[in-house]
Every structure is written in structure tokens, then in C-alpha cells.
């Protein structure tokens, strides 16, 4: 709001006297300068003579709102508006109040009312446009920007914002036209035509729109034109775009030149540049190139798709004869050469050995992870693309893994005996042996051989007990072997060695939370937060989502469901804030012409509710509410009751009392802090704290209708995270409990669709399909036509071959049996279904679980515990249960479960 808005012609058309008009102007000025006390004083002076002056009332309300007096403010603004419905100032303020409450739809309505009265008010138009882009009313945004542009065509930002609106709503051609018209309005020699960051960004933005609409030829011509005019400053992007377009246009020689120039500029470690270069050498088609160029991370073309013998030798020749000679220091180049060689060949072994030796000499802790990207697999379902083997069963059987393990064993042998590498004379320092052991330990970890892995990391710690990284690996191994408490201790020992190392401090915190020691975890976190005020609040302010997710899970395990929900919801709140933070970019980015980055931000924000972190939080909330729904007696309104009804009741009771005590203490501290703090601004933040602390245990959350809440979160997941399997599993779980059989069925179909490329059914889907066949019923009195379709679709769920649930279970029993490495949890689920439906003998079910020992996929500690529970429940399979426990004990030797 500017002073110009301070229309004194108000109070039902009666103008204010001169003195009051001046006062009103000063109110507006004080508001803009954030001198709230003075502003209120001036407003009161007007209201003394004109108590019903609408605009003054509104302005006073607006100022009160800024000082935190929310309710009073809203009432005052409403009163003002009632007294002067024809004032755009009142409507504008009304909109601003809604905006500050984040009620954007209402704010937009109010702004539009204001604009009806004052059609050409730039300030209100701008505020409206901001809200429209925030709410992604792209059509409205574009119209508003058009109005602004018509009013002020001399401002560059107005042109850019209009173009951006067109681009965002999908009118690429229109956007390009707007930019072109803008450029044509410029006079020769204008600064906007000279070489500068802004000119360059605008040109590249226009170019990216051309590319987005697939106009490769035009885009490329435009790029070249820009270069001729010499207005580009971002030469790196320029070259990358050139290369990419030329690949799309299949002009391979030119593309090759572009990527070579990128190497010359120093991009030799950028794997995507290597991929582009290789695509050009091999003349790969535009479509396939597009797909390959999308890949991120340290994988270039030969580790992305299966290449023919000829293609590989072409690339090998190029890389060995030219690239390596040109860039002998490039690690990426050396690494790519390894991926071009045949894993079985001696050449490969030589290359990988020198690569490993180079890196353990330098002491690269991440070498193991780096090498793990070489465990490439391709399955027929995956077409020509590679994926990286991660399951220990697949890793153990992988040729690259076996060869690397052998090489590392030889290196260790040689270092231990002669302090040299095999075939080498140079004496190595002790740290080389250290990193060789470290690598060996990580390799054992990949193969789930934790006992052996710990053996090697112990050697490392024995040799260099001051190495912080070593304790981290040891802790991880101990955790994987089944003892989270000891793992947390181990990390804490490492943390002690370097108290400035935030990473090890955070890892320790995480492990402490997983070991259910949340109090100590908070102490550790507090070491790195601001030292004033409540660390918990500081952690919230810093949006530490990993901590909150772990803490929520910890509370969940401790059956403190209220607190658990609170923490998950804190994560949700962060996402709202992150979404809200866009406001900072809307006007800034256009002004600074960082349009390419701005469009990226807008698109990224559109997808944030589908991010893993949010999905995990929503999932946690849904699962907690469903648990509460399923166990109404065990955990009624508050979790204290739940405590006393547990075993070891007295201990729990004592805990509850202790908690209450702590609560009281916290309140006391807060109150004291409040009393001590007289400052106005600070007391505001205190008040915020107090509001938060009114329900520190989340008891209010527990009182909400459980299924409705779960439904609400499942709906956000369905809307935003449709590509997560867990979304559909949660949706199923919620729908089946709500008696919505059709929606539950749809969720299962969606889940199946997501996993369509896998030959095997996911055990969580299998479990639910069985459950659905048993329990999925339409509401009574459904239309016969609906019933018919429902029954048909329900049968379709069983797949093309099975006609009944029993046939479905039997089909999977046979499929699992025919494929030895079939996943353990799938085996368990099939066995459970067999037992329930009397398919085969109990021994058949029992054998299905154990027949391949632990040489199966998806073996985890929890899956083993579940398998053992099922085995124990089967009559006559005591032998199998004992055998299985022994196998599990071998892998998870530190766990007390076996």
C-alpha cells in the first residue's frame, strides 16, 4: 500500500477535513515504516472525531494485525469495511488480513472487490498477481499481468512477468512472442541489449522455452544468433544446450564438438557431459539420447544401457587414445574406461586394481560406494537399461563384486606382508593398509557379512583409534548386525573425538533415537543449535526433518502416539512453510531475471508434497491413526492409560509421572522466561511458544476422529505422490477400514500398475489382495450393475490365470518355489495365506519359508523376525524354526532376537 492509496474521500462520500486527511496519510506512512505505535496513535486521533471512518478503522486493524493482536485486528477491519463498502482501501486491507492468515482464496476475492472500485490500482493488481501465481491460478495471473503491462508498458519486469505467465500456463509460443515484442521495443544501444547477466539470462530463458516446445532447430539457431551478438555470459549452459539440441537434431559431429569444448572448459568430471559425448560418438537416436541425458549421478552411458561389442570398442578406443591422453588427471575418465571393459577380462582387473590402489592411497572413505555402482544388472523386463544390484544376494553373485573382493584381498595380503602393493616396489604408509581394510569391510557389508565386516573395521580402529570415520562405519555395521544400542555407543565414541564434527554428532543423534534414547538425542542436538531458548524449538525452526521423523518413529515405538503425531505434523508444517517461502521469489526473480531458475523453483514447489520426506511423515500419521483405530481399548484418548495397562506397569507409571513432572518444569521455565522478558518483540515469540506448548503431548490430536484424519492424509498422498507404492498401500488400508471397497480395489490396481515391470508381486500387495478377496465387500443394496462390475474387477485382481483366491495363492506358491532367490517377505506372506486357506500341508508352507535359507532377496532383521514368528506358529515345524533361527543368528550375530 502506498501513500497514493490513502484516499481521504471516504466516510460515505464525505471527505475528511484537512487535518484528518494529513493524519490519515501519516497512518499509512507509519504502517509502511513499521512504526506501529505511532500509526495507532494517529489513527486514534482521527477516530476520536470520526469514530466510524471506515478506512481509518481498517488501517488501524492492519497495524494491530502486525503487532500480533489478531482477533482485535480482524474485528476492527470488518467494522471498517462495514462502514465503507465502497472503498478500495478497505477491501485491500481486508485482503491483506486474509493473506496474513494464509487464506489466499479469500484474499484474492477481496482484492478483486477492491479492483472493481479502483480498476487501475497498480499496487492492488501486483498484490493480486502475487497471490495468483502462489495459488497457481495461472490463467488469472496472466490476465492480471496483462493489465499491469497495459498500464505500465515501459517497465521490463511487466513484460517478463507476462511472458512467464504464458509460459507457465503452457503457451510456449505466446511466451516467446511476448519476449520478442519486448526486445523489439528496445532502442538500439539499450542496456537490455548489451552483454550482461540479465540480457544473457533472458536470452537463455527464451531459448529454454523454444526447446521445451520441441522447436530444436529454432532453438539452436537462436543460440547461435545469441553467440554472434555476443550477449551470453553463461557459456557453460550455452554449450550444454548446444550439445543437447544437436543430439536431438542428430547432428552428431557438431554435438561432439560442443561436448569436447565443455571438457576443455573443465567439465571432465561431469558424467552427463561424458554421456552426451558418447551419445554423439555412437550416433544414438534423439529419443534415446533424451532419456539417457536425464540420468543423474556418477553413471555415464556405458553404465546406463547395454552397449554392443562394437559400440564399446569404439568408445574404448576414443577414451584410451584421446580422452586419457588429453585429461590424464580426470578420475571420471579413468572410471568410465573401467565400465567399457569386459568384467571377465584381465584388462578390467588391471584397471580396477590401479583405480582402487590410487584411491586407497589417497584415503577415500566413499570408495566402496563408488565401486558399488559397478554392480550392474539388466533384466529382460528392464529392456536395454542397467540397474545397480543392491540386494546382498545379487551383490554376492555379481562378477564385478567377486573380482573386486579378490583384488582387495590380494592388496591387503601384500600390504600386510610387505607394506607394498602387489607388483609394486613403493613402500606404503600405514594409512594405505587402513583404507584397504576399510574398503574390505564395506565390501563385506554389501554382502551382508557383518561379522567379517566388523572384523576388518576393528583392525582399522586398532591401528588408528583416532579416526572418526572408522567409528561411523563400525556403528553402522553393529546396527545392521542387530544391536542398535551398542551402535549408538560406538558412534558416541567417535563423536567424542571431534566435537566440532556436526556430521558424526547428527549420526549419533539418529542412532540414539533409533535406540529409543530420545532424551540423550536431544542433548546431542542441542550442542549444535542456538544456545538461547528451547533447543526443541530451535530444531523446529531449523526444519530438521530427519530428526523429527526419527523422533516420531521413536515415540511410536514407545506408544506415545500423541507426541508421535505431533512430530510427524511438524514435518508437514515445514512443507507448508517451504511452500509459503515461494512468496520471496515471485517478485525478486522476475526483477533479477533469474527466470530459468525461477521456473525450476515453481515446478519443484508444485511437486513438493510428493517428496520422500513428506510422504514418510504422511505415512507415519496414517499408520499411527490406523493403529489407534484398530486398537481402541489399548490406547484410548490419552497415552497414559495405555501405559498402566502394559506389562511392567509400575515402571511405566513411574515414567508417566516423571513425564508430567518434566512438563510442569518446562511450563515453569517458560513462565519465568516470559516474566523476565519485557521486550515487546520477544514476548511475541514467547507467546508463539506458549501456543505451541498448550498441547505438548499431542493429546488433542488423539481425540480427533482417527479414520477421518487418516483419510485426509491418504488423500494428499494420492493427489501428490501417486508414484510411491506406499501411497496406494496406505490408501488401501484406509479405504478398506472405511468400507469403501471400490476405492480400496482401485488402490490395489494402482499399486500393481506401479510394479508392472517386476516379475514378482510385492509382498505388501500380495497380502492386501488376499485380504481384499477375503474382506472386500460392497455396501448392501448396491446396484446390481455395480455389483457385477465389482465382482468382475475383483476377479481381475487375481491376474489373468487364476480364477479363485485359492488358485491365486497356489499360483504364487509355485512361482516362488520355481525361483530360488524369491524374496523372504513374499515367501512369508504366501505361507501365511496357504495356512489360512488350507492350501497344501502346513509343512509345505513352512518349507516355502526356509527352503533356500537366507540366500533369498529382501532379507532384513525385521523380515527374519517375522519369518521366525510364522515358523514358530506352524505346528510340527519346530525343526524349521530352530534351523531358521540359527541361520539368522549367523547374519545378525549381535541381535537378541534369535
Amino acid at each position, binding site marked *: 500500500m502506498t501513500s497514493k492509496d490513502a484516499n481521504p474521500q471516504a466516510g460515505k462520500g464525505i471527505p475528511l477535513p484537512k487535518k484528518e486527511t494529513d493524519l490519515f496519510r501519516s497512518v499509512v506512512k507509519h504502517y509502511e515504516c513499521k512504526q506501529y505505535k505511532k500509526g495507532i496513535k494517529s489513527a486514534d486521533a482521527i477516530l476520536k472525531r470520526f469514530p466510524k471512518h471506515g478506512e481509518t478503522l481498517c488501517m488501524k486493524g492492519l497495524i494491530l494485525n502486525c503487532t500480533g493482536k489478531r482477533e482485535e485486528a480482524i474485528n476492527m477491519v470488518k467494522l471498517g469495511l462495514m462502514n465503507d463498502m465502497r472503498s478500495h482501501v478497505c477491501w485491500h486491507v481486508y485482503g491483506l488480513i486474509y493473506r496474513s492468515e494464509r487464506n489466499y482464496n479469500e484474499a484474492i476475492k477481496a482484492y478483486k472487490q477492491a479492483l472493481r472500485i479502483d480498476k487501475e490500482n497498480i499496487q492492488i493488481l501486483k498484490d493480486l498477481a502475487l497471490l495468483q501465481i502462489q495459488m497457481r491460478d495461472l490463467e488469472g495471473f496472466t490476465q492480471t499481468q496483462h493489465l499491469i503491462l497495459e498500464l505500465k508498458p515501459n517497465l521490463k519486469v511487466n513484460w517478463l512477468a507476462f511472458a512467464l505467465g504464458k509460459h507457465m500456463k503452457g503457451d510456449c509460443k505466446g511466451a516467446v512472442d511476448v519476449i520478442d515484442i519486448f526486445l523489439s521495443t528496445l532502442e538500439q544501444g539499450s542496456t537490455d541489449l548489451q552483454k550482461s547477466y540479465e540480457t544473457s539470462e533472458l536470452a537463455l530463458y527464451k531459448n529454454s522455452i523454444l526447446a521445451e516446445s520441441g522447436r530444436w532447430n529454432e532453438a539452436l539457431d537462436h543460440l547461435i544468433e545469441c553467440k554472434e551478438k555476443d550477449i551470453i555470459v553463461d557459456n557453460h549452459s550455452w554449450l550444454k544446450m548446444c550439445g543437447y539440441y544437436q543430439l536431438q537434431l542428430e547432428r552428431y559431429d557438431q554435438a561432439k564438438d560442443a561436448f569436447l569444448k565443455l571438457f576443455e572448459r573443465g567439465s571432465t568430471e561431469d558424467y552427463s557431459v561424458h554421456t552426451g559425448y558418447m551419445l554423439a560418438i555412437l550416433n544414438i537416436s534423439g529419443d534415446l539420447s533424451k532419456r539417457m541425458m536425464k540420468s543423474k549421478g556418477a553413471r555415464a552411458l556405458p553404465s546406463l544401457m547395454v552397449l554392443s561389442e562394437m559400440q564399446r570398442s569404439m568408445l574404448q578406443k576414443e577414451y584410451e587414445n584421446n580422452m586419457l591422453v588429453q585429461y590424464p588427471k580426470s578420475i571420471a575418465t579413468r572410471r568410465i574406461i573401467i565400465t567399457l571393459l569386459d568384467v571377465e577380462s584381465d584388462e578390467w582387473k588391471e584397471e580396477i586394481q590401479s583405480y582402487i590402489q590410487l584411491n586407497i592411497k589417497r584415503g577415500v572413505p566413499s570408495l566402496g560406494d563408488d565401486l558399488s555402482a559397478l554392480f550392474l544388472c539388466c533384466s529382460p523386463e528392464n529392456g536395454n537399461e542397467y540397474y545397480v544390484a543392491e540386494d546382498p544376494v545379487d551383490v554376492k553373485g555379481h562378477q564385478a563384486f567377486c573380482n573386486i573382493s579378490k583384488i582387495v584381498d590380494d592388496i591387503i595380503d601384500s600390504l600386510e606382508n610387505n607394506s607394498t602393493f602387489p607388483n609394486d616396489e613403493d613402500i606404503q604408509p600405514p594409512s594405505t593398509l587402513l583404507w584397504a581394510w576399510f574398503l574390505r569391510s564395506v565390501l563385506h557389508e554389501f554382502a551382508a557379512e557383518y561379522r567379517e565386516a566388523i572384523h576388518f573395521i576393528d583392525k582399522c580402529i586398532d591401528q*588408528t583409534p583416532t579416526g572418526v570415520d572408522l567409528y561411523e562405519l563400525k556403528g553402522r555395521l553393529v546396527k545392521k548386525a542387530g544391536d542398535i544400542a551398542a551402535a549408538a555407543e560406538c558412534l558416541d565414541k567417535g563423536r*567424542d573425538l*571431534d566435537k566440532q564434527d556436526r556430521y558424526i554428532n547428527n549420526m549419533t543423534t539418529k542412532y540414539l533415537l533409533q535406540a529409543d534414547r530420545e532424551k540423550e538425542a536431544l542433548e546431542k542436538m542441542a550442542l549444535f543449535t542456538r544456545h538461547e531458548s528451547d533447543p526443541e524449538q530451535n530444531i523446529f525452526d531449523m526444519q530438521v526433518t530427519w530428526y523429527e521423523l526419527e523422533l516420531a518413529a521413536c515415540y511410536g515405538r514407545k506408544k506415545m502416539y500423541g507426541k508421535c503425531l505431533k512430530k510427524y505434523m511438524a514435518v508437514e508444517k515445514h512443507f507448508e512453510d517451504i511452500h509459503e517461502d515461494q512468496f520471496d521469489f515471485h517478485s525478486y526473480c522476475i526483477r533479477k531475471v533469474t527466470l530459468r531458475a525461477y521456473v525450476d523453483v515453481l515446478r519443484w514447489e508444485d511437486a513438493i508434497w510428493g517428496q520422500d520426506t513428506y510422504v514418510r511423515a504422511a505415512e507415519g500419521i496414517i499408520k499411527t491413526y490406523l493403529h489407534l483405530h484398530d486398537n481402541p481399548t489399548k490406547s484410548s484418548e490419552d497415552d497414559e492409560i495405555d501405559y498402566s495397562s502394559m506389562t511392567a506397569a509400575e515402571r511405566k507409571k513411574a515414567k508417566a509421572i516423571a513425564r508430567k513432572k518434566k512438563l510442569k518444569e518446562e511450563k515453569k521455565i517458560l513462565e519465568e522466561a516470559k516474566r523476565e522478558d519485557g521486550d515487546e518483540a520477544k514476548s511475541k515469540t514467547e507467546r508463539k511458544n506458549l501456543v505451541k506448548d498448550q498441547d505438548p503431548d499431542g493429546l488433542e490430536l488423539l481425540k480427533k476422529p482417527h479414520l477421518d484424519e487418516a483419510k485426509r492424509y491418504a488423500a494428499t498422498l494420492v493427489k501428490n505422490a501417486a508414484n510411491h507404492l506406499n501411497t496406494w498401500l496406505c490408501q488401501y488400508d484406509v479405504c478398506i477400514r472405511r468400507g469403501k471397497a471400490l476405492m480400496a480395489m482401485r488402490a490395489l490396481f494402482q499399486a500393481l500398475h506401479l510394479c508392472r515391470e517386476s516379475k514378482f508381486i510385492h509382498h505388501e500387495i500380495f497380502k492386501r489382495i488376499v485380504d481384499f478377496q477375503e474382506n472386500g465387500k460392497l455396501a448392501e443394496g448396491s446396484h446390481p450393475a455395480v455389483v457385477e462390475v465389482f465382482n468382475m474387477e475383483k476377479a481381475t485382481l487375481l491376474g489373468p490365470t487364476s480364477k479363485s483366491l485359492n488358485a491365486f495363492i497356489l499360483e504364487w506358491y509355485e512361482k516362488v518355489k520355481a525361483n530360488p532367490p524369491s524374496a523372504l517377505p513374499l515367501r512369508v506372506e504366501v505361507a501365511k495365506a496357504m495356512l489360512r486357506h488350507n492350501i497344501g500341508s502346513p509343512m509345505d508352507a513352512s518349507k516355502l519359508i526356509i527352503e533356500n535359507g537366507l540366500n533369498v532377496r529382501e532379507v532384513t532383521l525385521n523380515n527374519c523376525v517375522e519369518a521366525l514368528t510364522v515358523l514358530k506358529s506352524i505346528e510340527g515345524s519346530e525343526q524349521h524354526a530352530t534351523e531358521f533361527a540359527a541361520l539368522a543368528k549367523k547374519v545378525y550375530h549381535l541381535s537378541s532376537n534369535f
Partner: protein
Amino acid sequence: MREIEIDFGMITNDNVEQLRIINSTSLPISYPDGFYKDVVIAKDESLNKFAYHNGFVIGAICCRIQKDGDASSKIYIMTLGVLPSYRGRNVGTKLVQSVIDHATSEECQKIGISEIMLHVQISNNDAIKFYERLGFEKGELVENYYKRIDPPHCYILRKKL
């Protein structure tokens, strides 16, 4: 001799635990908490320092300045330790040499540092030889200097500057 490259680094409150590890792996007696506190408070990298190799602490030396009278004072080496796996690579030599260099610097000469000295258990021939190589001379025998180790006697080693 297979020398390895080392860097020196400060001992602070945040990493003093590593000094404890170095000392406990290389010295026969355990030092009280007060010792570590003093080292941290001193904040003097020329007297108390870690030896780093490839980013890890592998050794440390801790000294203090002792006033004899008004005019002269000396540097007293309290502890010197190197992790067992890293011994025989000149790490200890470099640590002591750095202290000798410091003692002969202008800064120390100004405050009248006249010698570097230390105590060594009489049975520790390796240490005596080590210091003699660096120009230290065996001085008087102090009986029953140590309380918990055998033999309890020690020599004083000095290097006049």
C-alpha cells in the same frame, strides 16, 4: 627409515579426547584430567600439538614453560606419543624437532629459554637413545620419581640451547 608426511595441528577442547587416546596407547602412566585441561587452556600450538598423517591424528607432543628464576626459563616436555602402527617413521623426531625449533626462535630467546628438558624412566633405553640422537644429554638420576611403575627411578635429559 620409511618417512611419512605429517602436518601439525592445535589441541582444543573439541579434539582433546584424541590426545587421551595417543597417550594411553604410548605411555605407561595415565595422566589426570587436570593435565588435559591445562593443555587445552594453554592454547599454544608451538608447545602442544598433534601430528596428522592423511587427516588422522597419529601422534602428539605436550610441553610447558618452567621458570627457573627471574632471568632464565626452560621448556619441559611433559608427554610425547605416537600410535604404535606409525612408529619408526620419524614422527616423534619431527615433533621434538619442531619444539627445538620453537625454543631457539627469537620469541623464546626473548623470554630467556635456555634449555629443553624431560624425565625418562631409567629402563627406557629406546627413549634415551632417541633423545640422545636429537642432542639431549643424560643428566642426574631422580630416585622414586614414579609411583606406580617399576623401576620408579628416572633420568633427567636436557638439551642446552
